[in-house]
């Protein structure tokens, strides 16, 4: 039971649990998202991300525990929750055979925006999406980046204080992705709380706070920098050599090697329990007759963090 309203948080999750028969999809989850923050919700497929988001959007009732979203209880008052959030899914939910303007009107109707406000918001959405002069174009003729911005415009037409973006950038090109993140920052600077899921961890770097979930449980929570410090016990190195594939093979059998991963003519190796991993790698490769051009320590990427924390969970 959640009694207090916590004014500085847009989302407060306490003991949130969802079971489907014998299967626990979301398992006693606790976390808080501050107002105006960009919160990245990450996890592999099947980890429980969608189930959690559906509960937070008031679409699915929790089995036990609960969550407050914008001050409303998702279990008791799902309709109030639905009214104050925006939701954009990876499939963009646009009607391909309607024009840009018709799609916006359709969403305006769903949100019950009165005529004058709808006109105002319609102009805003067209401007924001960079679709001026294209209001009459059929949606299917738009590129991925435009569709994505139009879908975002439709999702926030009613100016919700909290917006959920479920894999909003899947299959969108680098330039459009960068534009999209500029829009997200603008929203967040204007006070909107942004709750976003993505499979692309270079994007997760943009978030203020990240929650990593696995098997229905929250296994890490913090800023990107804080999460990277969780890997301080592992030392990650980049090794440049003539034949990275053979070198990776040669190291793979060493007990101190946690992971190897190819990067063009180099590879990354993560090690554990070594004083001087550079020396150990060099001597092992030399022993196996593989010449090394360069070895250098590198900071972990968020992908490294993700892969390592999940591997640790699997061991337990």
């Amino acid at each position, binding site marked *: 039971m959640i009694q207090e309203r916590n004014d500085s948080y847009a989302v407060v999750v306490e003991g949130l649990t969802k079971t489907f028969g014998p299967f626990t999809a979301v398992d006693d989850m606790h976390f808080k998202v501050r107002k105006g923050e*960009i919160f990245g919700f*990450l*996890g*592999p*497929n*099947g980890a429980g991300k969608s189930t959690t988001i559906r509960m937070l959007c008031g679409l699915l009732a929790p089995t036990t525990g609960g969550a407050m979203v914008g001050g409303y209880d998702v279990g008791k008052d799902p309709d109030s929750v639905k009214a104050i959030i925006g939701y954009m899914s*990876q499939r963009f939910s646009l009607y391909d055979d309607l024009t840009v303007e018709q799609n916006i009107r359709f969403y305006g109707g769903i949100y019950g925006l009165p005529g004058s406000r709808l006109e105002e918001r319609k102009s805003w959405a067209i401007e924001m999406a960079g679709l001026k002069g294209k209001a009459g174009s059929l949606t299917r003729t738009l*590129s*991925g*980046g435009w569709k994505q911005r139009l879908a975002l415009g439709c999702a926030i037409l009613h100016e919700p204080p909290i917006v959920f973006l479920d*894999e909003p950038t*899947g*299959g*969108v*090109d*680098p*330039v*459009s992705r*960068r534009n999209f*993140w500029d829009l997200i*920052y603008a929203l967040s*600077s204007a006070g909107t709380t942004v709750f976003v899921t993505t*499979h*692309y*961890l*270079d994007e997760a*770097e*943009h*978030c*203020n*706070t990240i929650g990593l979930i696995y098997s229905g449980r929250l296994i890490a929570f913090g*800023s*990107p*920098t804080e999460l990277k410090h969780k890997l301080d016990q592992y030392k990650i190195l980049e090794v440049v050599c003539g034949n*990275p*594939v*053979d070198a*990776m*093979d040669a190291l793979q059998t060493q007990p101190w090697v946690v992971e190897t*991963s*190819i*990067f*063009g*003519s180099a590879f990354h190796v993560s090690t554990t329990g070594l004083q001087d991993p550079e020396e150990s790698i060099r001597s092992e490769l030399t022993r196996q007759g593989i010449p090394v051009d360069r070895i250098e320590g590198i900071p972990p990427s968020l*992908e490294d963090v*993700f*892969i390592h924390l*999940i591997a640790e969970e699997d061991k337990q």
Partner: protein
Amino acid sequence: MNEFSVVLENVSKIFTEEGKHEIVAVDGVSLTIRKGEIFTLVGPDGAGKTTMIRMMCGVIPPSQGSIEVTGLRMDFHLSEIKTRIGYLAQRFSLYGDLTVDENIDFFAEIHKVRDYERRKLELLDFMRLSPFRGRLAERLSGGMKQKLALACTLIHTPQIIFLDEPTTGVDPVSRRDFWKILSSVLRSGISIVMATPYLDEAERSSRVALINEGKILMCDTPEHVKASFPLNVMEIVCEDPRKAMGLLKGGKGFQSIELFGDRLHIVFDSAKAAMEETLENLRTLGVPATGRTISPSLEDVFISKISR
């Protein structure tokens, strides 16, 4: 023996639809892909990546120019080339109502491979799909479907495989797994050509071609592409990066400023080190910050090239 897997010489593809303007999807591209490479074509939607891959696989003919694959000319030896290559299309076509085993059998048969049983077991083992041989393809997870599709692409032991955006929509754990498998594929002597919209994937390849509007903007190793970047890149860490961004955004001297959760990433519009000046400016405006010069990412290079 030819050391090149694929050679494109001045290749163009022009699509014409009745009553419409011609669309130049690929515009005078010359390119050589070496044996044993993971070669990546990277670019935005509509840049021409898929059209290039389809021409290299002999699925569609070029409008102009010549293509050689494994030392054979496409216009003379199309059917021989098809036996030597594997192609994993963007929406790969597994049969949902066939099992894992049956899907592989099907692909072996259309490629007229005989005695593929051993190869099949090897591939199943390799992809860690052996425990799921009897499962219907439609009941596999996204990552497993992708691995099965790759197994089907490899059943006839091709010399080179073409993968069109193989990791779109795949989660990070499966993606890393997929890259492990690709490095083993490479070790077995098979060259890999892939198209992707993701620059972090391009970082992992032997060489990368940056593509925009049907043309190659640049083609080299990721290190050389980054080293060629003439501009100064800097990372700034401060208490309130949003405020810093707001203060800097209107100013001169920046090509782009990108905001991350706890830092800014600035590309200056010249090679001149304007770092001290920027930090001093921020300090005067009440945002003390620290900064360091960093090497550009492939994304910096790419965005800078196509926004010109």
